[in-house]
């Protein structure tokens, strides 16, 4: 079971984890006003973990309660917590910074909506 701050946010439906780019942020010298045509390393990239999936509910109100449970975790400013994927891999000090739903709520056998949730490890 995946979780964020110990809460199962995405378990109602299928979801997948992806880790964004890692490495050094490199800025062209002309942007920094530095001499020469090269670039300058400015520090490590903040790592994003992106969760893509589909929330489901047997009723529309159940689906809304699951969407609301996610939305309540979006605080300003963000409060970091531990994100754990279904394989047990964990990322500490991750801030929940974005939640975007698909273009429609689907009603077939169940109610469902696709989503993309972004967590960032601020430096």
């Amino acid at each position, binding site marked *: 079971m995946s979780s964020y701050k110990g809460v199962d946010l995405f378990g109602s*439906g*299928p*979801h*997948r*984890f992806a880790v964004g780019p890692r490495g050094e942020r490199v800025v062209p010298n002309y942007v920094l006003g530095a001499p020469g045509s090269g670039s300058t390393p400015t520090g490590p990239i903040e790592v994003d973990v992106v969760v893509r*999936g*589909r929330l*489901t509910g047997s009723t529309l109100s159940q689906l809304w309660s699951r969407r609301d449970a996610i939305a309540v975790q979006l605080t300003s400013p963000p409060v970091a917590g531990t994100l754990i*994927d*279904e*394989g047990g891999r964990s990322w500490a000090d991750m801030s929940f910074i974005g939640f975007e739903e698909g273009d429609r709520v*689907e*009603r*077939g*056998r*169940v109610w*469902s909506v696709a989503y993309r949730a972004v967590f960032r490890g601020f430096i």
Partner: protein
Amino acid sequence: MLLLNPRMVRFGGEVWTDVTVLAIDRVGTRVIAEWGDQGPHPVFADVPERKTVVRIVQEVGAGGLRAPALGDEQELTARTTPAGSDGEAYELRARCVVTGVAHELSVRRGALRTIELIAVSAAGGGGGGTDPVSVVRVNP
């Protein structure tokens, strides 16, 4: 669902005679399949958009000039009994829109008209949430 030689087929106020086949096909026009991180097979599938297509094959004779107009919306009613017996009868009802009319002529089968319709769910009946086709048992 397939009805062979239904005893009666009505479309609104019109009676369609000599119907040999009434077929109802269900088509998933939007299919969702989702995978998880743990394996190669889908872990979720659903069909949130679907279409119920009704196909009626009618033998037409010399009086086959009156064909249904495309876009006509009426209630389709068909009654059938198992193997054409006098036993319990079933009535099929569906609000339908005519989407196609085609004719075929052959020496063996004569002149046939195929009418294709889409069954629609009543706008007030949950906004598409109810099955547009209903089948009830009736007295023969």
